[in-house]
Every structure is written in C-alpha cells, then in structure tokens.
C-alpha cells in the first residue's frame, strides 16, 4: 500500500498533470462558491472535456475540482447564509451566525481546515482499503456483480430521497433508456424506431449534461435573479488562524465526524449532504452545551465540514471497488471512467491499481493546496458569488452546448441534451431522483451482460448462490429498514 501510494504521488509529479490539477482546484473554488452549481454539476459540465485524455490528467482536473468544491462552498454558506454546495447546508446553521457576530474569519478557518483534514482522512482510508478489497473482488463473478449493481442502483434510488417509489421508477427509466440501440449480446437494434441516431444508443455526456446541468440553466434563466445580495465582511488573518487552531482543540469531535463521514460515504446511495447533517447532529448530541448550536457554535462548523470531507474518500471505496456509487457524484465518476475507456466494476482495482493510487494522491494534494488557497484568499472569495444570475445562465448554457457537441461533432447530441434537460427539469420539479436515472442508464448495459452470463452458467438458480443471495438479503434489509423500524416504533 505504501509503495502504491508513493508511486501514486510520483505519477502526478509531472508539470502537465500538476497544471491540470491546479486548474481543477481553481475551478473547484469557483464552482463551489457559486451556489447554482456544486461538485456534481461541475463534474457533469467538465465531463466532455476529458474525452481522449490520459486518465491521470483527466482525474487531476476532475478530482481537483470535486475535492475542493464543497470546501469552497463553505465560504458562501458562512458569509452569505447560502450553501455553495448541498453538503454546506449544515455549515450555515452556525457559520452564518458567527459572521453576524464578527467572527467570519474564525468560521472560515475552521471550515477549510476541518474539510481538508477530513478529506485527507477519507483519501488515506481509500488507500488503505485497496489491498483489502483486491482479494475480495476475486471472489466476485457475474451473479455477484449483477447483485451488487442492482443493490447500488436501488440504494441510490431509495435511500436519501423523499419518495422511494419515485426513486425506483427513476432507476427503472434509466435502465430502459440504456436499452436503446444495438444490444451487445445479440447485436439486435432495440427501441430505435429506425432512427439512425439511436442505433448506437444515447451517449453518457448528453445524459449527464441534460440531467444535471440543464435544470440549473433553466432555473437561472427562469428566475433571472442574482444569487447573492448580502453585504460581506472581510475576515481577518488572526480570526482565520484561530479557526484553524479550533479544529485541533476539538480533535475528538473531528475524529468522530470523520468516522461518520467515512461510514456514510461507504454506504451506497446516501451522499455527502447526509454525512454533513449527521456529523452536525452528533456534534450537538455530544456537546456539553447543545443549546448553543445554531447561535454561532464553532463545533457546528467543524463537524459537518469534517464529515463531508471524509465522505469523499469513503464514497470512492464502493465506487471503485464494486461500481456501486456512494452518491450521485460518484455515479458521474463511473461515467467518466467509461468515457476514458476504463470498465468500472470489481476488477477496476485489480487491473488499474496504479490509477486508483494516483487518484488518492490527487485528492490528498488537492485538499492541502485547496485549503491553503482558500485560507489565503478568503477575503476575495465572497466576490465570486456576486456574479449575476443572468451572466451565469448563458455561460453555463454555452458550455453545455459546446460540451454536448464535442461528443461526436453532431448537433443532434446538443438537441438531445436540451431535450433531456427539459425532462430532467420536470423530474426535479416532481421530485424524481436524477442520480438514479443516470445510474440506471450507466449500469444498465453492464447489468444485462452480467444477467445473461449468470443465466447461461447457472440458469435461474444464480439468485440462490451464497454471495448473491446474501447481497439480496442485505439490500432488502437496507431498503426496508426505515419502514420496519418506524412500524415497530409506532407499535411499541
């Protein structure tokens, strides 16, 4: 593991890769501060740029952005009471009151430090888990892989959403969209209705851009408002440094929050936002002064930021080990692997361990460099959020249109992206899970392949093999736990 991690660091010590990494970090700062975007949308928008790129460079850009985005989003949450990224929604509960009390710098210092250290904990855990998972994945064949895919998709569809039924419908729709085009098994063209554009099926990039980026564009154009209007105070260096020291003063809280973030990250389908809120909740429950939470308590900033920082590394464990994404962002990461020609699934860690260690190294460097940039530049950060909404709208629209066109040099991809965007906007309005749609689409072909391989080798009895059956039982327990627990609680 140590040698692998060392080689990972060596592999990124290349001027070109470091340039991509710095570019990703700076993009992450901008995307994190702008409340309309966030890491998930940032990944979707940047996805087309990595076509044909060498994988390490691609991940330097993308993971550099993704690692820093929620860290930067804390600035908007603390200074303006607007979460820059959805995991920052817990941070503003105590972060903004601290700003109102004139302690913005302390809150920012604590947020950036705990988020970056939490991210380092997550990345290290990912590196430690690679040697553990490599022998485990060797026990996985087609039936096990199929069950893992179905568990991952149903987790994303059901957990952390307001309506599990709608989540499953969304996942089913994603699966069905993936069936459009030539089937890999039989070579038969399905659901194309003799339209040549559909013979190769829909591409990952128009789906990602349409599902995630376009609804934000439509929102910006529809509301036509500026994002932030609040006057912001400038944080002082003394205050910032005090916040940095606060994280080390509350090291027990920090560790507990990291553990929560790691567990939530590993659990498929939950995501960084839940990790942040659970980190906040445990901080309040374990505090000597819980009544102070919500009034400007530094623990209320440290805990959620540490939790969602650790969640990043934790979320990559099931994503890279089993192609079971920890969150919607991880689902897009799987799409990026596909674009780069790397098959996601249990054998990724076995066949591309060097790439995985490079990703760990990229994340670790991102967290350190990103924290330094944010702490040093915190006085100027807030100005980015004052970019008017009607400047952002066309900016993102043009980027989306260019990105969609770059897929295959066809305007049809642009039209498809915008059409999917309209449907996705409606789905968001009606509370259907878009990550579930995307994941179903992404893994539908893989699931079908595993299904036919399993059927060919074991007939229908593959459902009752030990590992697949265990995964089915775990999935059923995971999906029904909340309902059953609620029923038991109401009875007794």
């Amino acid at each position, binding site marked *: 593991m140590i040698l692998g991690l060392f080689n990972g660091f060596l592999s990124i010590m290349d001027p070109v890769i470091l340039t991509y990494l710095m570019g990703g970090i700076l993009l992450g700062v901008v995307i994190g501060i702008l409340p309309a975007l966030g890491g998930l949308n940032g990944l979707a928008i940047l996805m087309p740029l990595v076509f044909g790129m060498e994988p390490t460079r691609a991940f330097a850009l993308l993971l550099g952005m993704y690692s820093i985005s929620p860290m930067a989003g804390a600035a908007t949450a603390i200074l303006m009471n607007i979460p820059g990224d*959805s995991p920052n*929604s817990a941070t503003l509960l105590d972060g903004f009151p601290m700003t109102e009390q004139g302690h913005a710098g302390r809150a920012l210092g604590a947020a950036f430090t705990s988020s970056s250290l939490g991210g380092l904990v997550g990345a290290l855990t990912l590196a430690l888990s690679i040697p553990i998972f490599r022998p485990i994945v060797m026990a996985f064949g087609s039936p096990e892989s199929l069950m893992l895919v179905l568990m991952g998709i149903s987790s994303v569809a059901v957990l*952390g*959403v*307001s*309506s599990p*039924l*709608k989540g*499953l*419908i969304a996942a*089913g*729709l994603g*699966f*069905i969209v993936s*069936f459009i085009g030539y089937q890999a*098994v*039989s070579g*038969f063209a*399905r*659901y194309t209705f003799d339209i040549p554009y559909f013979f190769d099926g829909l591409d990952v990039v128009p789906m990602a851009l349409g599902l995630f980026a376009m609804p*934000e*564009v*439509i*929102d910006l*154009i*529809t*509301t*036509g408002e500026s994002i932030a209007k609040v006057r912001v105070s400038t944080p002082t260096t003394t205050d910032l440094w005090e916040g940095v020291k606060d994280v080390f003063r509350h090291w027990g809280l920090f560790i507990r929050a990291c553990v929560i973030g790691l567990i939530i990250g590993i659990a498929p389908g939950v*995501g960084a*936002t*839940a990790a942040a809120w659970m980190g906040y909740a445990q901080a309040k429950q374990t505090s000597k002064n819980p009544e102070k939470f919500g009034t400007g308590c530094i623990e209320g900033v440290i805990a959620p930021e540490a939790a969602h920082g650790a969640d990043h590394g934790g979320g990559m464990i099931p994503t890279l080990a089993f192609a079971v994404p920890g*969150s*919607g962002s991880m689902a897009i990461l799987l799409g990026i692997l596909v674009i780069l020609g790397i098959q996601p699934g249990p054998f990724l860690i076995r066949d591309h361990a060097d790439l995985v260690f490079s990703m760990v190294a990229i994340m670790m460097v991102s967290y350190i460099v990103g924290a330094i940039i944010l702490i040093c530049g915190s006085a100027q950060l807030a100005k980015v959020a004052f970019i*008017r909404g*009607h*400047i952002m*709208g*066309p900016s993102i*629209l*043009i980027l989306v*249109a*260019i990105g969609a*066109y*770059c897929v295959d040099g066809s*305007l049809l991809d*642009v*039209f498809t992206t*915008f059409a999917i965007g*309209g449907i996705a906007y*409606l789905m*968001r*309005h*009606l*509370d259907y*899970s*878009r990550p579930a749609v995307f994941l179903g689409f992404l893994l*539908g072909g893989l*699931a079908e392949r595993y*299904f*036919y391989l399993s059927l060919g080798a074991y007939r229908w009895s593959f459902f009752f093999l030990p590992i697949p059956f265990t995964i089915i039982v775990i999935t059923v327990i995971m999906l029904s736990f909340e309902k059953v627990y609620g029923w038991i609680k109401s009875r007794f």
Partner: protein
Amino acid sequence: MKLDIIFSSVVLAILIVMMVVSTGYPPKARLFPLILIIFTAGLVGIHLIKLIWGKTKKEELSEVEKPAARVSWTSYFRAPVWIGGFLLAIYLLGYLVGAALFSLLYLKVHGEKWGMAIGFSLGVIALVYGGFEIALKTPLYGGLLFQ
C-alpha cells in the same frame, strides 16, 4: 399533483408501447428489457393509483435535489424561448457567431451595460475560436448559413 399525474400517465403509455414493441424482438433481446419495463410500469401504475386516490402524503424536498425557485407562471416560458432561440442561433449561425450574438442579446435584454455585454460576447468568441478551434484544434459547428 396534477402535473405528476400527467407525467406518470405519459410514462406509463410509453412503457406500454415499449412492451408491445419488445414482443417482436428475439428472445435474448427482449427478456431483460421486458423484466425491467414490466417492473417499472407496475411501479408507475401503483404511483398513479396513489396519486389519483389522493393517498400520496406531502413529500419533503430531498436534501440532494435543489428546490425549484419560486417564480411566476409566465416565467416558465422564458427558458424555453431563450434556449430555443439559442439553439436556432447555433443551427443557423454556428457556435462562433450564434453564441456571441445570443450572449449580447441576452445580457442587453436583462439590463447589462453595453461594455459588459460586448466584453462577454468577445469572451465567448475567444473561448470558441481561441480555445477550441486554435488551442484544442476542435472546430465547432460553423452554421447552416455559412456552409
């Protein structure tokens, strides 16, 4: 809720069409899709029944999904008009001219000063021509009128 009923009904109709179309495919091509289509159609049916009978409880907005903005009814036509206009501009004039003109028009209509609008449009031209055509050697669509 009305919109959800319409959306679910359309989805169910599409799924039924796909089910019928699937029956004409060879066995290996239709088995897995049919399983998923029937499963999804069943879920949509249950959801529709719950909606129609008014038994769906009010759902809280998910923390993962961003809440839709509170806007007036007519504002919802703004986006399709602008986006449709943008697509038309790209189709007819290409990325270089179409995107720049769209940016200029959009910013001026939304009250930006000429300096900002022209500067932004020049930035778009720099991105499309300098960034993609020159630096990345990826020429973008030139426009129907210029072909």
